[in-house]
Structure formats: structure tokens, C-alpha cells
């Protein structure tokens, strides 16, 4: 029965240095769905994503990927991860093509040589994000939005079944966001599943199937995305912000007792 979900999170809890960030989160994503995780800064939405891909250890609960408990999951090529990052540069220049090519490693293994299929997948992924003419350019010469698209192309190059994106639209201009929404729609049309974290939906709103709002480490709302309305009339928007301000004090007051109860 659980084998049918792409992602299944049951009663997940995560803490950083004794401070609980996620408390009792459950979430299920079906194959072919596009789900957005929303929440204010510090709500735990990014932590949820990082726990999913194994970058943050669970303090409690379970995570299954494609029906396999995360600890025994080995088919990482099925997952395309796009980290939260402004910029994709490092200490040595790297071309767009080289960065995207590293997305092929999960599929071909670290010792195997490069095959024709790798090159084709890189070109296809770059075409998908509209950067195929920049393949030979150093990543550092691209704009922030373009660099974010390079990271998305890197994930797509591995031909994953599930895309997991951490704030892919943060700091990205509106044009890039619309191109990005189109890229995700095409990925979904090919049968892909998408789970993304966002601060606000923006141009992504029409393409999202379902929203999950994380607040103070718990799921506060799950359902269809709110209808387009005036920016501040959005239920998600309204719901999150007034509480966010009070959050730090709240956590300090009752966090220890909550920890012990777990």
C-alpha cells in the first residue's frame, strides 16, 4: 500500500542541537503530483526537504522514498535535488556544461566514462531551462536567476522521477520564474513528481496541484492552492505572517517539555 507513494513522511521530527525544528510532520506525495511546501522563514519547511534527502538526520518518525525506507534507499538517481542557493560558483571556474554534467553521476557511477547519452541529457536539460546557448560559459558570468536554472538543469540531467527543490524561486526575477514554471510543467507532463519549497507561489500558483503549509514545525494547512486574489488576501499569506513574529518566544517557552514528550 505504501509502495504507491513517491514520498511518504510519517510523524517526522527533527532537531538542531536540542531545539526542535520539525515536530510530528506527516506528508504523502503521489507519483505525478506537484506539491508546494509553504511557510514563513524559520517555519521548518527547508528542514523538511533536507531531512527527506538525508542531509539532516531524523530525531523521530519515518521517511519512505518510492516505498523504500530512506535509510535503505539507494536509487538516488531517481531523485533530482535542487539546493537552496544563490549562485553556483566556487573557487575554480566551471562551465555551465560541466556543472550540469555532474547531474549525470548518480546515473552512470563515478568510475564509468562519459557516454553519448550523458551529453544528450545535458543538452536536453539545458534546453529545458533555456540555457543551451550558454553551455560553454563560466557559471560565474550568469545572473542569479540563470545560475538557479543551471542547478535545475543539473537535477534534470539525471533524468529523475522525483524533483525536490528548495526555494527555487528565491531571488529569481519574474521572467525566470515563468520559464521555471513552464519547465516544471513539462517535467510533470513526462510523468515526473515534484516537491518544492517556496516562500510564496507567485507565477507557480497555476501549476501547483496541492499546497502544504508548515508552521512552527507542524503542518498547519494542506489542500488546494489558494485562489488567486489580492496579494494580502491569500489565506496562506494571512495565516503565516502574524504568527511568525511571535514564533521565537513561543519556542523558547515550551520547547523543552515538548522534547521530553517525544
Amino acid at each position: 500500500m505504501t509502495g504507491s507513494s513517491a514520498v511518504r513522511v510519517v510523524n517526522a521530527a527533527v532537531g538542531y542541537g536540542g531545539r526542535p525544528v520539525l515536530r510530528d510532520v506527516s506528508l504523502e506525495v503521489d507519483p505525478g503530483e506537484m506539491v508546494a511546501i509553504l511557510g514563513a522563514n524559520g517555519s521548518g519547511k527547508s528542514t523538511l526537504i533536507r531531512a527527506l534527502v538525508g542531509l539532516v538526520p531524523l530525531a523521530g518518525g519515518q521517511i519512505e522514498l518510492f516505498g523504500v525506507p530512506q535509510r535503505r534507499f539507494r536509487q538516488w538517481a531517481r531523485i533530482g535535488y535542487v539546493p537552496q542557493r544563490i549562485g553556483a560558483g566556487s573557487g575554480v571556474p566551471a562551465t555551465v556544461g560541466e556543472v550540469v554534467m555532474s547531474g549525470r553521476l548518480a546515473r552512470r557511477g563515478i568510475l564509468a566514462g562519459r557516454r553519448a547519452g550523458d551529453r544528450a541529457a545535458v543538452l536536453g536539460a539545458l534546453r529545458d531551462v533555456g540555457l543551451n546557448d550558454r553551455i560553454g560559459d563560466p557559471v560565474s558570468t550568469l545572473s542569479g536567476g540563470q545560475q538557479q536554472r543551471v542547478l535545475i538543469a543539473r537535477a534534470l540531467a539525471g533524468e529523475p522521477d522525483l524533483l525536490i527543490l528548495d526555494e527555487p524561486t528565491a531571488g529569481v526575477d519574474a521572467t525566470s520564474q515563468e520559464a521555471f514554471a513552464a519547465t516544471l510543467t513539462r517535467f510533470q507532463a513526462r510523468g515526473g513528481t515534484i516537491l518544492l519549497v517556496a516562500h510564496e507561489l507567485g507565477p507557480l500558483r497555476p501549476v501547483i496541484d496541492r499546497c502544504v503549509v508548515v508552521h512552527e514545525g507542524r503542518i498547519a494547512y494542506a489542500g488546494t492552492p489558494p485562489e488567486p486574489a489580492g496579494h494580502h488576501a491569500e489565506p496562506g499569506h494571512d495565516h503565516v505572517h502574524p504568527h511568525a513574529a511571535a514564533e521565537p518566544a513561543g519556542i523558547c517557552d515550551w520547547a523543552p517539555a515538548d522534547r521530553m514528550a517525544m
Partner: protein
Amino acid sequence: MNLFAYDFMVRALIGALIIGLAAPALGIYLVQRRLSLIGDGIGHVALTGVGVGLLLGRSPVITAVIVSAIGAVGVELIRQRGRTSGDLALALLFYGGIAGGVVLVGLSSNSSNASLMQYLFGSLTTTSASDLVIIGGLGVAVLVAMLLLRPALFAVCHDEEYARVSGLPVRTLNLLLAVTTAVTVTIAMRTVGLLLVSALMVVPVAAAQQVTRGFRTTMTAAMVIGIGAAAAGFVVSAEADTAPGATIVIMALAVFLALTVGGAGWRLLHGRPRRGVEVEPPDVVLNG
């Protein structure tokens, strides 16, 4: 004067060329990870290994490889923890390494200032045939590992978290890089000395990236610059009777300076008038 009339000169040149090729091939990953100075620290630790070797009457190269590998793995474990105290822990390790080395070298029976200087600043012309075998074997091993694993090491040094999610054996690759750093430091100690080891890993990479656009081209160019500096430095030091290690490093720095000035000049001349056809630098052809 014929430079190659003596066997020791030939051995010295071969040793220098191997290091000139291997050091930048490893160093590029350290630079990419913004750990340019790590080779320097491991060099300090290697001195303790030299002291142990001299004290036990064994080959200092072997004991230096072992001790600096232990040190490098320790550094890697500290880095993985990512604690703020890591910086201080590294300082303690490095100064402990150099202090321990000086004391141990002093205790050994054939102690003299000369033997200490030989390891600190290199002593290319005293490279023995058995030294050369060790340098050659380890140098080739470093080169093969760095070239064969380039895609994986690039991924790990470029974005470690992404590499982990890709299912790459990140911890193993990091430890491999740490041990390889230790090995390179130790075999380069005969050429440029422990105090200048890091320069041969970092300066050719810094020089190459003044004119390159991609990782692969940077790596190739850095290795060319490294081997060129080693050869030129060797010849100049023999002619001018200067210290070979320092001369090699100065050659690499000269290339860096020339490429920096030349690259800026090129961009000034060719970068500005962007009309119609884009002028592409010769190394843009990608990495196929």
C-alpha cells in the same frame, strides 16, 4: 655546461617534473574548495614524520607519508564537523606538527641544521635513486586518481551536499583527497621543501584560471604551467646557482603575473567592442 652530465641532475629533473605535474592536479580540488592553505598545514605535520623517520633510521619519505596522512585525515574529520573551533584545532595541529618535527630531527643521530633545512626548503639534487622510485610511484598514483575521479571529485568539491544526495561516496572521496594531499606534500618535500609545498599546488591553478573558463581546461593548463615551471626553475637554478625549490615557485609566480596582466590586456582589447560576432577565447570549445 651540460646539465645532464651527472646522474643526480637527471634524477633531480625527473623528480621535479613529476611533482610539477602531480601537485596542480591535486591542488585544483583544494582551490575549488577554498582550502588553498591546507597543503601548507599538512607540510608542517609532515615534518614530524620526517623526524620520526630520522630517529628510527628509516626512510623519512615513508614515515612522512604516514604521519601527514594521519594529520590530513584528522583535518578532514575536523572539517566535516564544521565547528567554529575547527580553525583553532587546525592551528594546534599544524604548530604541533612543526614543533614536534624540529625536536625529533634534533634528537636524531645525524642531526644538523643542514638536514632540517633540506626538508624545509627542499634538496632536489640529493634525490637518490630509491627516492626517485618512491616519488615516481606515488606521483603516478596521485595523477591517476585525480584524473580518473575528476567528475566525482569535481562534484564533491563544487557542491558537497548535492553530491551526497546524488548517492556519491562523499566521505570516501573526501578521505581519498586528504590522503592524496598528504602523499603529494611528502613527495614534493624533496623538490620545493615543506614550506613551499603548497605553492606548487596552488600557484599554477591560480595562474591558469586567469585565462580559462572551465574546470577541465583550468586543470590541464595548471598541469602544463606546473611542469613548465618545474623545468624552467630547474634549469635557471642550475645556471644561476639558486635554490631549486624557490626558483621553481618563482617561475610559477612569474607565469601567474604574466597571465594576469596578459589576460586583462586581452579582455581590454577584445572584450569591449562587442559588435555582431562574439569573440570566443580559444579554450571555450567544451570539454566533450
